[in-house]
């Protein structure tokens, strides 16, 4: 299990993930941010499971999720999720 935190301008994203080979096999977020609607966070986690463990793939999945769901995360941008995930991926196991 890999863990990382990323402090966005408003809100701390905590991420726990596991990889299999070069793939994110499972991922879970927690923290003190806001997301509307709240239930979508599980969808973001599902959208990232199975994605290649690269910045490009993660960024693509996050941006696609924002576009397709219309979720709103005040003062939290797609790039902040990507940064949190990359920290967990690049950190020590």
């Amino acid at each position, binding site marked *: 299990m890999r863990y990382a935190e990323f402090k966005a301008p408003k809100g701390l994203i905590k991420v726990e993930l596991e990889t299999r080979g070069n793939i994110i096999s499972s991922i879970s977020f927690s923290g003190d941010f806001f997301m509307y609607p709240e239930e979508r966070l599980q969808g973001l986690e599902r959208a990232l499971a199975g994605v290649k463990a690269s910045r490009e793939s993660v960024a693509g999945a996050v941006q696609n999720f924002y576009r397709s769901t219309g979720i709103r995360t005040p*003062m939290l941008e797609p790039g902040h999720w990507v940064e949190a995930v990359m920290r967990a991926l690049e950190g020590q196991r």
Partner: protein
Amino acid sequence: MNKWRLLPLTMNDASMNMAIDEAICRLNAEGKSPNTLRFYRWEPAAVSIGCFQRVEQEVDLELARRCGIDVVRRITGGGAVFHDHDGELTYAAVCGQGDVPDDIIESYGVICGGLVDGFKRLGLWAEFKPVNDVLVNDKKISGSAQTRRWGSVLQHGTILIDPNVRLMFELLKVSPEKISDKFIASVYERVTSINREMGRKLSFEEVRAAMSEGFASALDVKLVGGELTRQELELANELRSKLGSEEWLRRR
């Protein structure tokens, strides 16, 4: 002028406080409850965590248990909050989504505008700081969390009257080495309270009266005193078993 119901100041345990907020929001969405403003206290004191937080990462559960402090997960996002029995007043505003701006930050600003106006009535110069804070003299005195569910808006938040800051940071997981006198001093530079700013002790009723008038004026509504309906109480009693459950607390 639109009418909102103003509920009397009540005191409940954490799961019931959260259940009442949720019940009003659900029934407001169904057109069965009016737009509502309520103020409440916590008996016993409690820690509430945001709906996306992991309780064991945020709260010293063992200390909470020893102190008899409730721990509850909110249906709103944001961070962990210590609801001191004697030092904190909580408000909740429930209305239709059409009654506030669609933009999330703007809508926080509108509802927090009631607090800003209320603090001014107490003689304190306050300002809204997006996303969800109200500051007095550049220090945080109130934090809010909003959810939009079922077609309605619930925004609840803290009004710090005289919180026990040391106990707050012992309960909320700040690394022990951080809870030094220096850390506590730095908190006093960032967070303030009504009693500290006023230099005297205010009663909960005094604060509630000022904030109610502030909300009425800022939201341009007429507040009409009322009680929880039988339907709201029944739904709240149903919801409290979910909101008070270990499963809900450890959901994330």
